[in-house]
């Protein structure tokens, strides 16, 4: 026979806490089952209860106007009559909408006193709730809810019943023996009169799911440790960038298919931010294939006839952490330098097993005399080995800001070869405008894909897993 949880204290003399604990233990041992019944009921908030006693502001105003007759009452007199600013607005608005007031001042009743209601709908709803009667006028209820006078309370009723195994349990010994030691037993010395029930210490305890670090976040931290160990200093940058830092300063042409591989998400309402003027002039010269200010020859043929500073100011969600590298290099680091940033980026991509529109990249730059493309390869190998990946192969690639550009592929047990190590040497058209005089190796590792290899995940979406049971150590 099911029994309501609220009735158990009276039947047993145990406290609600003791009962809750005991029931959970019975449930986990499959000796009892619970059925939950949910219901919602309206109730008065403290403000609603006060309004019931002190009367609603609209009722108080109605009574005042009735007493004032045709002379009416100026609005300025209401504070002296005990109306707060909020009450004054609510009362006037409510009576105007109900047609009791016209729009003129002083405030004056539009109807004769015989037409005034004995009870406003708001009063009727408040009184019904107070008397625990059903509320039919839902529109008025919602209006009172918005005013913070009433609320909906959700209740859950739990009805417990013994399972078949629970019913078969012999209870004779249990009646004469006690389970947990309580503070009451100890304080009164009653424990001396009691016999303690021995437990079956081999029986399985209730299953506890304990929190643990998020696997992806924890893996990213481990990867950071590797980079710190290799002498890299961490850097961060804003998620909302300008096109200047996200693309232009990286020598990505403003109107070219190459830019479309970084198809950015744009946002509404964010301000345009002009880039630093001297740097803008140097970047514009590099794009247009003109000599940089102070130089005699251009760095290269450049990209276009016209570099558009208006494009540079536009805000976009960062599509690559190379923007963080650009800001780092613009600050004029002293060589030798090594910088890393593990952060989020956004691209306008459909989400599938291999792609996510929000993804984490591990950006790195390494600047010192003598750095060549072979050192980029060496770094990829070092990083791959550090996370236990042994198979790495290379192929040429393309990034507008590096030349040569390469892509390192590692083998995933199910997905096959996947590209995770893109990088190269930054182009002179990037370095010279930023004032960097040493060669700089740079890469933007698709760390989410590397994490998939390391964590044995087959779908990139699983990296953002938020399933309660899985994250607390339940079955995957």
């Amino acid at each position, binding site marked *: 026979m099911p029994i309501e949880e609220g009735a158990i204290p009276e039947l047993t003399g145990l406290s609600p806490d003791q009962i809750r604990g005991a029931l959970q233990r019975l449930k986990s041992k499959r000796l009892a089952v619970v059925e939950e019944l949910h219901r919602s009921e309206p109730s008065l908030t403290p403000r609603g209860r006060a309004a019931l006693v002190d009367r609603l502001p609209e009722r108080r105003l109605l009574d005042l106007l009735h007493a004032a007759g045709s002379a009416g009452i100026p609005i300025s007199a209401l504070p002296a009559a005990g109306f707060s600013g909020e009450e004054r607005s609510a009362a006037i608005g409510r009576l105007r909408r109900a047609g009791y007031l016209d729009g003129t001042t002083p405030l004056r009743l539009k109807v004769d006193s015989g037409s005034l209601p004995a009870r406003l709908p708001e009063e009727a709803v408040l009184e019904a709730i107070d008397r625990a009667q059903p509320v039919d006028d839902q529109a008025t209820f919602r209006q009172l809810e918005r005013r913070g006078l009433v609320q909906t309370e959700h209740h859950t009723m739990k009805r417990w019943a013994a399972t078949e195994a629970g019913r078969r349990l012999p209870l004779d010994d249990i009646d004469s023996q006690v389970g947990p030691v309580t503070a009451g037993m100890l304080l009164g010395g009653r424990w001396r009169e009691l016999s303690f029930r021995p437990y079956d210490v081999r029986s399985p305890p209730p299953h506890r799911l304990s929190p643990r670090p998020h696997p992806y976040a924890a893996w990213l931290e481990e990867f950071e440790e590797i980079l710190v160990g290799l002498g890299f200093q961490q850097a961060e940058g804003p998620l909302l960038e300008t096109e200047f830092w996200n693309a232009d300063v990286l020598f990505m042409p403003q109107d070219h298919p190459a830019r479309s591989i970084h198809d950015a998400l744009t946002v509404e*309402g964010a301000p345009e931010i002009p880039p630093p003027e001297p740097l803008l002039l140097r970047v514009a010269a590099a794009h247009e294939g003109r000599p940089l200010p102070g130089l005699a020859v251009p760095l290269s043929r450049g990209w276009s006839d016209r570099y558009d500073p208006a494009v540079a100011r536009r805000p976009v969600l960062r599509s690559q952490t190379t923007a963080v590298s650009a800001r780092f290099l613009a600050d004029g680091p002293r060589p030798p330098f090594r910088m890393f940033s593990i952060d989020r980026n956004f691209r306008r991509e459909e989400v599938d097993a291999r792609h996510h529109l929000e993804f984490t990249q591990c950006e790195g730059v390494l600047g010192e005399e003598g750095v060549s493309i072979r050192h980029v390869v060496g770094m990829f190998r070092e990083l791959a080995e550090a996370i236990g990946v042994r198979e790495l192969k290379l192929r040429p690639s393309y990034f507008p800001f590096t030349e040569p550009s390469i892509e390192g592929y590692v083998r995933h047990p199910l997905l096959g070869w996947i590209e995770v190590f893109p990088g190269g040497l930054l182009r002179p058209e990037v370095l010279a405008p930023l004032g960097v005089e040493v060669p700089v190796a740079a890469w933007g590792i698709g760390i989410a894909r590397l994490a998939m290899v390391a964590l044995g995940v087959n779908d990139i979406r699983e990296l953002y897993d938020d399933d309660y049971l899985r994250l607390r150590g339940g079955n995957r």
Partner: protein
Amino acid sequence: MPQEHLSLSRLERLLGSSATEANLTEWLFPTKAELERIHGDDLTISVTPDRLDLLTETGLSLALAGALDRTRGPPPWPRRPDAERFAVQIDRSVAPLRPALAAIRVHAPHGRPLDSDLLAEAIRFQETLHATVGRDRRAASLGMYPLRELRSPLRYALEPIDQVRFTPLGETSARTAREFYAQHPFAEKYGAYGRVDDRILTLRDAEGHLLSLPPILNSGSYGEARPGDLDLLLESTGLTERTTQEILGLLEVVFAGRGWSWSPVSVHPAREAESAGAARDVPIRIHLTSRALAERTGYALSPPEVEEWLRRARLGARAVPGGWEVEVPPWRPDLLGEVDLTEEVLVARGLTAEEGRILPSRTRGGRLEEVRFRRRWAPLFLGLGATPLCNTVLVSADTVEALGSPPAIRIENPVSREYAYARPSLLLSMAGTLRRNTRHGYPQIWSEIGPILDPPGTGRAAGSTRYHAALAWAEEGRGFSDVAAISDCLLDALDVSSVREPFDHSSAIVGRSARVRVAGVEVAELGELHPRVLEALGVPVPVAWFEADLSALWPLVRPSGTH
């Protein structure tokens, strides 16, 4: 990556050998093209965005022949010295709309006029270039015309639409340009790039024959190249001279690879035109120094080796003091400077993982102090029994609406409603998590530490990146006081004294949300979600949350030196 469907049999004919899926995969791996799939004669290839020339059978066969060491050096692309000079005049009227034009003539080799195979390849590649470099014809477009009946000079101008009659390519009868603009699907798609009010772009010859309505369609009367033609005009109109030259140069590869020759076309800009095309009379040459090559690649390559690798990259190199002078073919606009040539050498030579060099570190690594401060929160949350989350910054429109549409940065070009806003608080992400976990029991305690973007109206620039830490507690019987206790506990752990003050959060029950200040600065919010929010999320138990602004808190705790 740009992708195209090519003809396998055409590629095999040009390559002079058969190609299977296995050997194409192997051949292409060290290049910038990749085999996607083969289905019958349909060969799907993707390329890096700098090598659009590989999206043709001719361009791909040229590169493969070099990579497989079957042919070296650039394909012959001779300038025909005896060709009659052709000219194009650009009228000043086009300047505000589409000012640039570039053009050349191409001539069939003796005894091998234009055939349907080359024509099909050229037309298909033309469309590929429209979609890529041409930005769907907005930035640049191409035209290809037989020169058999055309008289120089051509004239590129804007004309009143009602004065133009036109037989569209593929049709036999003429109609007015106004009818064409109103009825033809191409005009609907590209018409805006060739029309200002009631004037449209036209390209005519000296006798007034209409060649095309740029950038929409050629004329069927005078603008249709056919098998058997010996002499063609290739032109490009567009927004900038550079783009028109680039798209035209790329198209040339299909003729160069088939033994054709070329001759320049004089382009005469209008006196007051802002920009105009020019004939490509002078080839582009780039100087590659042996020093730069050695520094960037890390290899000591002998001059004969470098010349061999450049020739296998299908480039022509001439030794000069200190290095080489390389002539850039028109279909290689990716070769901007010396560093691009170093890559050509490297790609032709090949690079393996085993050749990587480890550079000993001469720097000391470390984390940002602010990041270390954030990291301190993770064990605190774990100690409170909270399950850590790693949610996306982008949140769904449904969740934003469920929380009563708090101010948030809206994505202008979202991929879907699922990622339509940048979160202004971690609460939004955790609300989504609560919604997705209603099938599990309660209690559920969640935590997250991560970035948010400031919504408009905070007093800071909208979209500023800040880092927050938050905890949400969903359990029967829990409420505001539980998260208030957590707030006090966490801030006490940081050794700061905090003050809680009333604050009406739009997602909370009135009177059950608060702000927390430290030294007068707002550093946190907490509260109890309103039942209307819980109902919208489908969560059957009360939820209380605490969210700290770590970017605001960090400067306040830093002086204590507790990190």
